[in-house]
């Protein structure tokens, strides 16, 4: 039940970001200045955290999507679906532990 809520909320969030992201990238067709100006906002501290949240939403939606496919296709996965929820959260933690330090160093460390 909770994973169903997680899947829907992350899905909706990603969908709205995707539309904004296509619109901001479309500015490359307007002028280099227009694109650089808007994309500059992605490099501010506030957006650094929003981006981290976005990557988290994508990682969670992706791993849970794989769990849903597994539970649909295999009775083994159906019987072990609770353990698979744990696998989703552990995989998610590993991805974020890899991504966050790198991203925060880029954003704040100037590296």
């Amino acid at each position: 039940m909770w994973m169903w809520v997680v899947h829907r909320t992350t899905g909706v969030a990603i969908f709205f970001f995707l539309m904004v992201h296509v619109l901001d990238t479309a500015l490359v067709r307007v002028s280099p200045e227009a694109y650089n100006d808007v994309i500059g906002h992605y490099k501010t501290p506030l957006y650094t955290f929003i981006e981290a949240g976005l990557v988290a939403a994508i990682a969670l939606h992706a791993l849970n999507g794989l769990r849903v496919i597994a539970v649909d296709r295999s009775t083994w996965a159906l019987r072990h679906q609770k353990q698979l929820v744990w696998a989703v959260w552990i995989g998610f933690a590993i991805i974020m532990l890899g991504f966050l330090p790198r991203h925060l160093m880029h954003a704040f460390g100037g590296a």
Partner: protein
Amino acid sequence: MAPAPELKAPKKGISHSTLGRTQRWSWIFQRVSGVALILLITIHLTVNLIMGDGINQIDFAFVAGKLANPFWQWFDFVMLVLAMVHGSNGMRMIIDDYARTKWMHATLQWALRIATVVIIVLGTLVLFTFDPCPAGADASLLPSFCEGI
């Protein structure tokens, strides 16, 4: 002992499928595109946010350098179409679940369809009509290969 009752031929089997043909295809598409998108988005985020300078490297020159290459044009095109169709297919199911009145349901579904088509068409036009070295632009904002042109 009474004779055994005459048995009629069984009725035609009942299909236990709860999905129609369209719904089944939408379900298969959601799974196939989902797996493909995991691969595409992992590459997209690795190249843009993890490798090199991460978020700091993203500017016009970076995007122009990528989109001057047909590989990235087609990569981004496939990712754009799959992500938008996957996302709007999910949104369609959510609207089906929560829109209470007929009017609200129709309005939201049409708004979703229009937004999806507009974003896919806009994104595709940008990817394939894009000029990495626009005439008259400030040379310091352009990718280095524009110098020779």
